[in-house]
């Protein structure tokens, strides 16, 4: 292949993927490593990349400690009840105690945060959410990252991490290709901070045909944060905790501001309140610890998101759909009506387009809601990701191996979706995690932990051949057929993606099976995943753009396989409403009040699963 090889050497900190986590990492790295070489490798253009590309209308994680609103442990209690006990509380506490400082900086940089005229504090949407005019959120944090980095390489799809050959299990950089020039890029680096984002499009979406890109999490969230880490042999956690969201139908418009700020509520097709009907039986399934309706009423302790999904899904399955969002009352207030529309324009324009196209005026008509296909991500109300070290002043020994947010691979750090067990970080928390990882990475280098890294040309060339193999495969076999896309020797990336989505949907609990799976289904699915893996060796890319899609698909496949293994291992339904194990419907605290941890052997592809202890911060108050 005629593509040039471009080597960037002597990097101290390589940021792979610069969304909210990556930009935070690059910014902070410059302070603790003023003399260090900081380089960003990003698949798109950092000005508009990642989940925040189109903007946000709220920052969902802000304590307001300075206004006396919340302390970090309040947030930990909230996130852990929402995730039914299963979180890394050390990481959550750590993120929560720093997150306000990130938000205050955003305001100083020009991000318009709304203020409550009465209290002077930021305008709250809910206990943890503050409202912003966030159309330019991403360009603003990108500016900070650009200012901090020595070099920003846009349009580089990172495909693999490089591994040190002088010390096993230590990172040495990354490789990828430029999706415009086709050139092969080699980044030799002492540390790597992966911020390459969570995964959409692993499960078959509800949208079809031309509309298949209309998913809730961005279609370019290709699970690279997981694919890169799993491929390098990093341990992963909570990969069974994929998320299903209740959203406005078809457009997937967010409902947070509607519920919290606009005070809308839901009802079934007959105009009845339905949620509470499902709670008594559900309480038996999950136990009073996780769903105590009386206590919730008394103390405003939130009901876990997944359990509310359960009520939604059950009601629809009982034939009393569709579920409607009651907007007609609130929207009589012109101010609230305007906020309702701005909320979409700020973060999900597609929903506004849909309502304009279908003449849905929420002032006179209650719009339909739906539950989404599942997503695999670690920063929203779910905690998939790498098993990372916590900070030294908080973490118990099982959670601590020296450097904050370092994965089980030395020198390899995570931020945002990449880090497991830290749900409810959202945008500000992801940025904060990037900052924490960057400080720790500088310390790792300063303490000499990255000395003597060796990367052979053999490794670089081997990866190169691997990276371009889909194009080579296409070149060799293309002319065996006359025309079209049906070839006995290969599948193209779209065909591979369709197969992956169908498989995940049917065997790992997607929408068409109402999120239900069991051991038998999971084992069949895993077998088919292996065969798909073989076929992915024969995926064919017609051009560089398809090569990008081919690598996104491979990262999605690794992520999906990990979801299968974790779901199979956890023999209970810990999160009804996100997924159900039909063969283990109940929450089983005796055996499963633990975190699940996996490792895929990079050489053999074999998985090992283990349980890790789940630590809590004492004093669970009622009013989480």
């Amino acid at each position, binding site marked *: 292949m005629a593509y040039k090889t471009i080597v960037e050497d002597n990097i101290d900190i390589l940021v792979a993927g610069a969304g909210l986590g990556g930009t935070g990492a690059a910014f*902070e790295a410059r*302070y*603790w490593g*003023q003399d260090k070489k900081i380089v960003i490798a990003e698949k798109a*253009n950092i000005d*508009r*990349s*990642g989940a925040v*590309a189109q903007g946000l209308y709220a920052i969902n994680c802000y304590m307001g400690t*300075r206004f006396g609103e919340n302390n*970090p*442990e309040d947030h930990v209690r909230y996130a852990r009840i929402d995730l039914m006990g299963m979180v890394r509380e050390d990481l959550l506490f750590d993120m929560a*105690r720093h997150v*306000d*400082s990130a938000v205050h*900086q955003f305001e100083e*940089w*020009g*991000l*318009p945060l709304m203020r409550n005229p009465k209290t002077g504090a930021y305008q709250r949407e809910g206990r943890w959410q503050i409202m912003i005019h966030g159309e*330019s959120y991403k*360009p*603003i944090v990108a*500016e*900070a990252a650009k200012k901090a980095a020595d070099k920003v390489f846009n349009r580089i799809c990172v495909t693999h991490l490089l591994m040190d050959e002088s010390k096993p299990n230590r990172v040495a950089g990354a490789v990828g290709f430029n999706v415009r020039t086709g050139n092969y890029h080699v980044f030799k680096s002492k540390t790597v901070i992966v911020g390459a984002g969570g995964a959409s499009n692993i499960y078959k979406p509800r*949208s079809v*045909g*031309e*509309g*298949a*890109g*209309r*998913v809730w999490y*961005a*279609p*370019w969230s290709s699970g690279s944060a997981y694919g890169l880490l799993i491929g390098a042999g990093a341990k992963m956690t909570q990969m069974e905790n994929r998320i299903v969201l209740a959203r406005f139908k078809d457009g997937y418009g967010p409902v947070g501001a509607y519920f919290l700020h606009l005070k809308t509520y839901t009802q079934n097709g007959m105009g009845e309140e339905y949620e509470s009907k499902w709670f008594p039986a559900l309480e038996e399934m999950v136990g009073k*610890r996780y769903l105590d309706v009386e206590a919730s009423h008394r103390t405003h302790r939130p009901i876990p998101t997944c359990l509310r999904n359960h009520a939604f899904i059950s009601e629809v399955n009982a034939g009393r759909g569709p579920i409607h969002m009651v907007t007609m009352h609130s929207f009589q207030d012109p101010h609230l009506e305007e906020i309702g*529309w701005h909320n979409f*324009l700020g973060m999900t*324009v597609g929903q506004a*387009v*849909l309502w*304009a*196209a*279908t*003449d849905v*005026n929420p002032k006179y008509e209650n719009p339909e809601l739906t539950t989404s296909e599942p997503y695999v991500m670690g920063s929203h109300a779910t905690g998939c990701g790498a098993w990372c070290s916590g900070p030294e002043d*908080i973490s118990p020994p099982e959670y601590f191996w020296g450097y904050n947010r370092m994965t089980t691979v030395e020198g390899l750090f995570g931020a945002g979706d990449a880090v497991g067990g830290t749900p409810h970080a959202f945008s500000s928390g992801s940025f904060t995690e990037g*900052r924490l990882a960057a400080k720790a990475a500088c310390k790792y280098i*300063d303490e000499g932990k990255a000395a003597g890294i060796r990367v052979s040309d053999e490794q670089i060339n081997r990866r190169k051949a691997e990276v371009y193999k889909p194009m080579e495969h296409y070149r060799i076999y293309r002319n065996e057929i006359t025309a079209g896309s049906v070839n006995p020797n290969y599948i193209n990336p779209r065909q591979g993606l369709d197969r992956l989505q169908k498989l995940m949907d049917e065997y790992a609990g997607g929408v068409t099976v109402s999120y239900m799976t069991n051991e038998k289904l999971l084992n069949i699915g895993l077998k088919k995943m292996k065969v798909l893996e073989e076929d992915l060796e024969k995926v064919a890319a017609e051009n560089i*753009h398809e090569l*990008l899609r081919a690598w996104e698909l491979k990262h999605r496949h690794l992520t999906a396989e990990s979801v299968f293994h974790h779901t199979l291992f956890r023999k209970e339904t810990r999160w009804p409403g996100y997924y159900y194990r039909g063969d283990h419907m109940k929450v089983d*605290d005796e055996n499963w*009040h633990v975190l699940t941890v996996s490792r895929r052997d990079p050489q053999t592809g074999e998985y090992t699963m283990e349980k890790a*202890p789940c*630590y*809590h*911060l*004492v004093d*669970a108050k009622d009013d989480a």
Partner: protein
Amino acid sequence: MPTFVYMTRCDGCGQCVDICPSDIMHIDTTVRRAYNIEPNMCWECYSCVKACPHQAIDVRGYADFAPLGHSVRVKRDEEKGVIAWRIKFRNGEKDMDLLAPITTKPWGKHIPQLRDVPAPTQEQRDSQLLYNEPKYIRFDDGGLHTLESNGLKMIKGVEGY
């Protein structure tokens, strides 16, 4: 909803190509104008629409659920720091103009160059503090929360919960 480009307005400048996070705005080699090469990977994020200097890009609702005949247009003005939207319903009954600020400061000017700020001390390096903390965390007592200061400790298993 996938984008498309009006032939008469596009001059092939490539700004949409530069910005699209999904890498799907490409320049057609024959007509030398931009087009969406993969509508089913478009998130209708409007990044390209906002970036186009000639308002040549528009969006048509997804064929699988959106009827024809509506419009959602946008104009983003970095100088003025505002974004303007116009939403027109298919039946013509609703036509809304909405305006929002996108920044309160000139771009980038208020982001510090951390290479030039005083270097962190060893004590700061050994602490849990990040850049410019505790200033940015609490303006009252200046402390960073620890388990100890919050009267907490980690305990194992379901009992601690």
